[in-house]
């Protein structure tokens, strides 16, 4: 759906030039929710703004829906942009227009007839749940309601892609969740491709299918959210994941055996339906090892349940080894910790 090829964006010239994106390649599939996460200044905002050429890349190509945007005339680009919806951190609504007129705005730009505009706007107002606010001005709305107007406006021209530029960063946690739910709903209902950039792992974990981690103008890690989230490779990714789980490292003392015999700390990762099975208790009953949970998370990534436990096994060396082997056999990911 979206292909970025060797995208480079440089600001300034000569010695003072800074490179926001350096030869970045990215491929986003139709119908998925793709997240780009990065710290501020990593280039994520430039990246998403390049996808509809609000920011023109210094070199490289931007393909959306099989069209190379970088090669288009101004007129053709304006037409292509109508197929790409965008929502913003600060909503960017017309303060002089009502909710209704804001949503109607892209339709009027495209010179649609009055009846068509009215039908479409009413449908969208219902979709985002703002039936009671149609004649209000943005200043009279809450942040969440403003973003709902933004979403409805972005959907008005039936886009193929929705770009979300830090769409929830200005919202409180509850409102963020309700907006994310709305985005997920839209994605499933219309099979709309959604690209979002954020600095919050929570956003990625809630609704994204795939994620790319951007750092210093390049993608350092990319893949299914479950893979990236549970098995982060790059230090930046590990940072984000740790931030979300908000846990410190387990105390070193805790890894020591409480009684006699050996002890071994292990990180066990459950994924999918296995998360809710009693695999751990069954296994230790068979092998005779004991365990203590030092740290743990059981949650979901989008709709996939997962669990990640740091567990200390105790008992004889062979009992512990047998336990680890059995856990691996049953499809759990077992990582021995030092």
């Amino acid at each position, binding site marked *: 759906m979206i292909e970025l090829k060797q995208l480079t964006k440089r600001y300034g010239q000569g010695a003072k030039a800074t490179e926001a994106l350096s030869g970045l390649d990215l491929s986003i599939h139709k119908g998925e929710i793709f997240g780009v996460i990065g710290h501020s200044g990593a280039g994520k905002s430039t990246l998403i703004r390049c996808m509809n050429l609000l920011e023109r890349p210094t070199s490289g190509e931007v393909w959306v829906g099989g069209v190379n945007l970088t090669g288009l005339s101004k007129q053709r680009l*304006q037409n292509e*942009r109508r197929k*790409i919806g*965008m929502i*913003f951190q600060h909503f*960017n609504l017309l303060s002089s227009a009502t909710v209704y007129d804001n949503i109607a705005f892209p339709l009027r*730009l495209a010179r649609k007839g009055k009846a068509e505009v009215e039908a479409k706007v009413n449908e969208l107002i219902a979709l985002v749940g703002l039936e009671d606010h149609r004649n209000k001005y*943005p200043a009279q709305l809450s942040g969440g309601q403003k973003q709902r107007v933004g979403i409805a406006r972005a959907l008005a*021209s039936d886009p193929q892609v929705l*770009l979300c530029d830090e769409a929830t960063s200005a919202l409180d946690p509850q409102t963020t969740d309700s907006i994310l739910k709305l985005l997920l709903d839209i994605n499933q209902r219309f099979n709309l491709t959604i690209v979002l950039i954020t600095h919050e792992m929570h956003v990625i974990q809630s609704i994204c299918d795939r994620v790319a981690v951007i750092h210093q103008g390049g993608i350092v890690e990319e893949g299914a959210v479950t893979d990236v989230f549970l098995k982060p490779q790059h230090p930046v990714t590990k940072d984000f994941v740790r931030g979300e789980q908000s846990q410190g490292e387990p105390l070193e003392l805790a890894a020591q055996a409480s009684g006699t015999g050996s002890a071994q700390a292990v990180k066990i990762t459950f994924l999918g339906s296995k998360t809710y099975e009693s695999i751990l208790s069954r296994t230790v009953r068979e092998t005779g090892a004991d365990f203590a949970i030092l740290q743990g998370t059981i949650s979901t990534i989008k709709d996939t349940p997962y669990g990640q436990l740091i567990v200390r096994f105790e008992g004889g060396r062979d009992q512990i080894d047998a336990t680890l082997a059995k856990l691996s056999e049953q499809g759990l990911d077992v990582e021995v910790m030092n």
Partner: protein
Amino acid sequence: MWGLDFSSVDWNEIGVATLDTLKMLGASAVFTFILGLPIGILLFMASRSTTGWVRAVYAVISFIVNILRSVPFIILIVALIPVTKAIVGVTFGVLGTIPPLVIAAAPFFARLVETSLREVDRGVIEAAHSMGASTWQVITRVLLPEARPGLLAGITITVVTLVSYTAMSGMVGGGGLGDLAIRYGYYRYETTVMIISVIFMIVLVQLLQMAGDRLVRHFTRK
């Protein structure tokens, strides 16, 4: 009262002068708006551009605007006599005053337009671009509606400024209340007529400012 003698006042003359002032004001305000608005939009659009020749156009227009704004109006009227003659055929009276009024006020108004357009949230302009708006659509559907309160305030300021300009044009026989005040008060020491004229102008300015403020408030959505 206060040593003023109202019996000798020619109210008919004051009525004519008031009407002349209103005529000058109305006509010059309309033309100032027609001329100043596009110049202001042009200044704003050109100031945002990164293209070399557009920046050059901006520099030139900006320079001309600054020149016209720095020349004292009274000098401008005299300097513009040939231009006025070419445009309206006469250089005195109500008609002869309108071209210099417009030429003096339009650059002033253009700057106010430019400033109020700058107040429009850049994000909103960007959002319009992201929705495929053309430059013309950005101007007519985003910039002007969003800047409406600022533009209305700018029009009010400009019209009030025009009131004092019309008074100055009295110096060169422009007609109107200012002319009356100068002829009676300054040349003939007949302070009564002068004071009445000035009071009329004060009332006029007050009314204009109140109307302007009310419009601004009506269209402010923030």
